[in-house]
């Protein structure tokens, strides 16, 4: 019996924190691998409309983003209140959309090009005139697969 009693004596040993860095590193590597950096800084207001008949957009490397909307507050003085297109990190005109598609295509591997999708992230208050212009340019550039990016929700909220 004395054998067992021996262990009970003494204080609680301090928990070793030597493996803490390892755990943290493990988490760190997970997030490093899972991270997709925000590609663009938004320069336009981008309140997306609601819709519920949506499909998910996977494979982020196969998506070209086109943003449109009114310039954000701090660009108002320079660019005015009219809705504009944003490609990469700068404002662009409608004519530049085609060029943008071509350069995006060039940066992708050839066999992936048919799978490229254009995601239109357009502010819900934008007029359809601008959106139609973008769509015409996309048709000219033969980028026919598009996706109107929306927030999942009841579409009736758009009209209110």
């Amino acid at each position, binding site marked *: 019996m004395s054998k067992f009693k021996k262990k009970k004596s003494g204080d609680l040993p301090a928990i070793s924190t030597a493996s803490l*860095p390892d755990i943290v590193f493990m988490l760190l590597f997970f997030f490093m691998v899972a991270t997709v950096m925000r590609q663009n800084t938004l320069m336009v207001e981008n309140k997306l409309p609601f819709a519920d*008949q*949506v*499909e*998910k957009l996977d494979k982020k490397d196969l998506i070209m983003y086109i943003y449109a909307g009114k310039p954000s507050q701090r660009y108002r003085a320079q660019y005015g209140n009219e809705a504009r297109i944003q490609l990469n990190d700068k404002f662009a005109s409608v004519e530049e959309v085609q060029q943008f598609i071509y350069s995006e295509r060039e940066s992708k591997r050839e066999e992936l090009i048919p799978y490229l*999708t254009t995601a239109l992230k357009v502010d*819900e*208050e934008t007029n359809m005139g601008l959106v139609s212009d973008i*769509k015409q340019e996309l*048709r000219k550039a033969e980028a026919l697969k598009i996706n109107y990016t929306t927030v999942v929700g009841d579409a009736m909220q758009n009209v209110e």
Partner: protein
Amino acid sequence: MAKRSAPEVNAGSMADIAFLLLIFFLVTTTIETDSGISRKLPPWQPEDVEPPVIKQRNIFTVLVNSNNQLLVEDEEMELSELREAAVEFLDNGAGTGDEACSFCQGAKDPNSSVNPQKAIISLVNNRGTEYGTYIAVQNELVAAYNQLRDREAQRMYGMTFTQMEKNYNDPNYNGDKDALKEKIDVITDMIPQKLSEAEPTS
């Protein structure tokens, strides 16, 4: 000089550094994926191509004006009624002979569509229409198609169309994907999404 052993580097702050990096990546991570309504644009065509002739009864016109009001088949309509009206039009099935629709449950109105395969929804919007309204209209029309497809898929295969598509796109799905793809093709062939968009009016 006396030989000195290199001093041990204190690794106590390693955890702090790792935490710092961890927090940085936590903040910059965007795990959520985007979702939205997928559409396919028609290819660019030269102006002088004659459009094919389509019977008026097979076209369901939806007009949206710059005040975001809807005009459906020459009648004013609320957005909330659009889905019902589109389903009624697609499901009408007044066709006979070659154009007969075997599964339609509609009213067989002689002034409406003959067959979902022939029925076309034409959407015309104004340049001043708000994008939010446009998306809402698109959403309702896609919902109308999905409602019909769900009904038919449920009747034929005992599973809704949306569920079938979801399974098909799910990499972890264990069932037979080729068979599923065939079923999906049958349904999309029965009720094709024919949504035409005209140039906006100004």
